[in-house]
């Protein structure tokens, strides 16, 4: 019986794909700081074709289906950047982990083809309004190449939204911490990383070589690593520098500058608030590390991690939020609440929303087609009965990916229903 419902739901999804939809009378949070209290949003052929303030104007198009969203909130689909969603299923089981390839410099390794659209985690994530994600490899000095996907699709080809959008560098640590045992259970004290200079020199050499290789017309022998980095120098791809410590940030930004990389993003950026001028000058954006974290030093402001987005906003640095860290794949569903926290600690609610929608789209280079509820963009939007940035009220009733209403059921809901039934609970 359960299975049947599921199949029916899928059929419905496919059937409605052709329909045009008008979402009526909801409060639309556009994603660009503006709010329309009584909105009319028209969707046709997967695109947003009309966004009307009903108190000022009339809808011009005609639609197959009308959804009454009176009293509800409408948002652009949230975007989870720097995510391992679909690359892992159970953290402790090695066989399910596909995010960390062996080797240290692997720019040519691509996350997209390992992205599992059938991961059981994904349906639990989009239930909270997250509709897109940047699937990102981990580990090594250069982890590989990420891609942006929508969280609905039969396979990775379907899901792909921006293929090979950028390359991820884990900036070497000036201080590092070694594990005392083979199983990485017992961490030792922080120590100065003796290899720091060597590691940064290696990176520098790799980038210089890749640049030279890609500028040569005749390649004697093909080098997959160098080839994969071409986009960094042409500006088609973004260089994501994963770095937290202030000194390392300074060095990483200077490194990108030296190598004339056009698009540079700091991922993590724990200390980025200390060097906002440098970031602004060099047009470097920050993908802020998980807000729900503790400050580095005991003497830091107790809420330093919470207010980091506000500090960047105030300084005029471009930023968005990500959820990298322990149990990150399953925790992706809490991304909206990271934004909620940023709103509690200095941002306006609409600025906070932006930090998981339009800002993220801009940083990922997909803002022309998504990130806000604006005419001409893909209809990646959802409806919630309440404020979606607050766990107390986040309740997604309908979501659209490229105009298609997606299934919001998941295994956890099924188990819930199963056991409610067992116990005769309402």
């Amino acid at each position: 019986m359960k299975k049947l419902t599921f199949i029916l739901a899928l059929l419905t999804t496919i059937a409605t794909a052709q329909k045009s939809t008008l979402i009526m009378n909801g409060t639309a949070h556009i994603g660009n700081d503006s709010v329309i209290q009584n909105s009319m949003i028209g969707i046709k052929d997967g695109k947003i074709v009309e966004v009307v303030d009903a108190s000022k104007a009339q809808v011009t198009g005609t639609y197959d289906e009308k959804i009454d969203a009176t009293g509800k909130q409408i948002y652009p689909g949230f975007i989870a950047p720097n995510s391992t969603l679909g690359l892992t299923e159970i953290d402790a089981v090695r066989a399910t982990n596909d995010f960390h390839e062996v080797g240290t410099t692997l720019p040519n390794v691509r996350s997209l083809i390992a992205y599992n659209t059938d991961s059981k985690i994904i349906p639990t994530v989009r239930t909270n309004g997250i509709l897109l994600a940047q699937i990102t490899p981990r580990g090594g000095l250069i982890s590989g190449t990420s891609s942006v996907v929508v969280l609905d699709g039969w396979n990775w080809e379907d899901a792909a939204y921006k293929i090979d959008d950028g390359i991820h560098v884990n900036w070497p640590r000036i201080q590092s911490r070694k594990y005392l045992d083979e199983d990485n259970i017992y961490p030792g004290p922080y120590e100065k990383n003796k290899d720091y200079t060597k590691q940064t020199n290696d990176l520098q050499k790799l980038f210089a070589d890749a640049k030279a290789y890609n500028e040569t017309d005749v390649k004697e022998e093909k080098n997959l690593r160098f080839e994969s980095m071409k986009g960094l120098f042409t500006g088609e791809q973004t260089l994501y520098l994963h770095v937290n410590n202030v000194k390392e940030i300074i060095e990483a930004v200077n490194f990108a500058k030296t190598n004339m990389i056009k698009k540079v993003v700091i991922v993590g950026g724990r200390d980025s608030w200390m060097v906002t001028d440098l970031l602004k000058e060099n047009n470097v954006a920050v993908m802020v590390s998980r807000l729900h974290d503790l400050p580095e030093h005991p003497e830091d402001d107790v809420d330093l991690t919470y207010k980091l987005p506000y500090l960047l906003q105030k300084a005029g640095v471009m930023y968005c939020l990500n959820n990298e860290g322990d149990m990150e794949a399953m925790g992706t569903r809490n991304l909206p609440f990271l934004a909620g926290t940023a709103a509690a600690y200095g941002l306006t609610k609409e600025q906070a929303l932006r930090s998981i929608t339009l800002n993220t789209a801009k940083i990922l280079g997909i803002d022309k087609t998504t990130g806000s509820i604006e005419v001409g963009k893909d209809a990646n939007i959802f409806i919630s009965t309440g404020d979606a940035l607050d766990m107390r009220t986040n309740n997604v009733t309908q979501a659209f990916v490229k105009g298609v209403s997606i299934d919001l059921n998941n295994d956890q809901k099924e188990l819930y229903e199963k056991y409610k039934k067992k116990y005769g609970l309402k």
Partner: protein
Amino acid sequence: MWRQPTGTMKQLFILLALVIGSTSIAQVTETFPVNGTTNKNHNTYAFTNVKIVVDPETTIDNGTLVVKDGIIIAVGPKISVPKGAVVYDLKGKTMYPGLIDAYTSYGMPEIKRMPVWGPPQMESNVKGAYGWNGAVKAETEANKIFTDDSKAADEMRRMGFGSVLTFQKDGIVRGSAAVVTLADGRENELMVLDKAAAMYSFDKGSSTQDYPSSLMGAIALLRQTYLDADWYKKDKTKKEYNISLDAFNNLQTLPQIFESTDKLNIMRADKIGDEFKMQYIVKGSGNEYQRLDDIKAANCRLIIPLNFPVAYDVEDAYDAANISLTELKHWEMAPVNPYALEKYVIPFAITTADLKDKKDFWKNMRKAISYGLSEKQALKSLTVTPAEMLNVSDKLGKLKAGMIANFIITSGDLFDEKTLIYENWIQGNPYKILDYNAIDVRGNYDLSYGGNHTVKLKVEGEPDKLKATVMADTAKMVASITVTGDAITLNFNPKDAAGTLRLSGNINANPLKFNGKGQLPDGSWISWSATYTSAMSADAKKDTAKKQAPTFGQVIYPFCAYGEPADDRDGFDKIINDFKNRYDAILIKHVTVWTNEAEGVLKNQDVYITEGRIVRIADDINATKMAYAKIIDGTGMHLTAGIIDEHSHIALISVNEGTQASSAEVRMGDVINSEDISIYRQLSGGVTMAQLLHGSANPIGGQSAIIKLRWGKSPEQMKFDKAAGFIKFALGENVKQSNWGDMNTIRFPQTRMGVEQVYYDYFTRAKEYDAKQKAFGALTDKAKATATPFRRDLELEAIAEILNKQRFITCHSYVQSELNMLMHVGDSMGFQVNTFTHILEGYKVADKMKARGIGASTFADWWAYKVEVKDAIPYNAAIMTKMGITTAINSDDAEMGRRLNQEAAKTVKYGGMTEEEALKMVTLNPAKLLHIDKWVGSIKVGKDADVVLWSDNPLSIYAKVEKTIIDGHIYYDRDQDEKMRIEIQKERARIIQKMIDEKKAGAATQKPVLKKQKLFGCDSMQENYMEE
């Protein structure tokens, strides 16, 4: 706190010690054959015209001391020199008793440490009939392994020491220590007291055995050793022969010395001492000034080091951020430690232990004196106090007839910077350091040579390391100078000649003058002379600089960021115990109150709190009559009961003693860390109480500590004394070590099948144990005396407490099969699980739990991190609540612990709990699970005033804590927090400036390296305490 036995008891102890340690000082080893002719010396030595510091209280200005056969035979102002004595005229010199260091490993063999990593080692690898644990080395006897080490002795002698306590620094029980002199010679001649003290620590040392892997394990091991030794003594059957326990019993009459590596360890040691009627002498770590009240209350004597930290290199602002406020302040305040102890009248000896470079000893001693330590106390701490501690005050520490002839001859006041130690006499034998007959040639001179050259000569430095400079007009030349007896050699390069001028000559003492012959660079001979003109002028400058009393910041409680100074503290002069009593009463006006009671949520209420209790809740309480109360306007705000984290691992030194399948004997209460910043951070999230749990490394873990987050107080003061006893159990992947790698496949159990058997085995044994204990307890005292003695077993005792409903189980658990299993074990063995914690599949067995009245403490939305949480659903809490199970949401995470209100709110989203039900999951429900809801968990008249004031609906992501109140005192205040941030910045800046000044003045510095706070979850195996 256990007071030292007084009067006859104490004398008995000393007497016993003397009988045991009856080795007398023999100047000559009679029993040894002589190669060559015998060379016995029974001469008498008389030291006359000397200022004798007999002891810190008594000084003879001009006296005589007579020595024969290594013993002082007479001391006094009018002693006639015996006929035929060798006489030393020490006019102008001062004589002190030889110093005593009560904490060394002098002459001990090197301890071999084996690499730690490898498969688990469950048993001791010490061969022979010794005890079960390799960290209990009671059988070690320093007197048997001591060997003379003349190089190390020389270093100590140069500092003025004549005798030391020495022991093998290895193990939790380290055996006996001996008092030896620092003379060179046969070991047979150097022993003052062969069994002088029993030594202990919390460090298992070179033992490679797994147990104990944690501080609480070390404490449990020591407690069990006391019990075992007592049983062993009483057991006449002696079926078990045990060298270690025998030795342990023999140690008990000696002074007991415990090593502590931190101020909090002093209280930990003292608690063990209280239990076994033992008052330890504690070797401190140098940060005792940070918790003086508690140390004073422990009533113990201390042996403290002078290991003052070196300044950090703080010139790089980014790097300097890695030095904690604790480290900065300790750098500034460490030298005040001896003074603080003196002020608090805590008896203490001073040791050279823990100094990286022993040469810093006198420098640091003088620093301590400049910070207020009196010279009298300093001398006491180096002579009579250690002598008394070690029961050798009849032999050492003073200059009195009959005592060992250990004394030093100095140029003057021992603690003065300019004073020189000339000679150190040990057992009547001289060890020359400097020649006191040598003429002090330091000063300024007019030097003329070759008849036509006159230059200035300056001689400075230490008498054994002279430095000379020659000045001709504006030119300055370094000269090399050597003084041997009355001969002097001086070399320098004159500016008007190419090459070195070499001068040799004699020293004329009175008036001070040098003259002699020398050779010019060209080889021609000349005459030269130098006449003393004045003393060095630099000294005068130094003196004025020294006279400025050092300034330093205040002690804060706890001694880290966001700690606060105690009110009304004036330096170290006053003892104020309860410094958090800032407000007697608080009135919160116009606030929305989430009562957690039948009244539900009440709007626009006034809440009055005083003497730690909620006293009144009403529509309008007249503030004008409450002039003494602090009035808080709660308009637009929400007041809830304090958040209680049912599952926390903050504020702990260590979490897992996972080396055995059961560690029921360990107590988290032994390892509370009151200085953990997590406490403050969680206060900022509204947490007022937490159950500090053992980890989940083994089926039967350790005993919980339930604390109130009384930031600033000591570990003992944080404990909630009304709480019942709890113990951690664990099931599943962690206890069967599924994710620990291929090495860990040895310890039983490795499957869920084995886990069940662990429980059956332990509960069966605990039942039998309990029956035996009860039967033994029922005997008359007379019958007890003749009965086979009962051996108390701390592990089984804790499990028996479960059976007797005196201790309750919080069990880490995930899947339904294992939940079912433990419920069945409980049914058949006669116990009930109190709380299943984590319990992510609780929704699958909710009916079974309900039937047994078992509670649940779970995560809001965690899953997918291991196989056993595959079926975890965020609706779990809702289903269990709807089934009538008392359900809490816990953190198990230092970060999430400060957002528990948000985690509770998720149950509204997942499963449709009402907001009131949701809030109860982190307040009233955990209180019920911990059996403390009588006092906390709701806002009700008469309950403890543990409340939180929120800026918004407490379940909203936008809600921030304004104030967290525990026992009616404000422990977190958003406005105060803002002020403290500024204070911390200022304090850091002030100390950093001081460090930079020191660096500029030439002081050594060290590079800052971030020491990151360690955070514990259930799986954490790393231990802070292993680091030293």
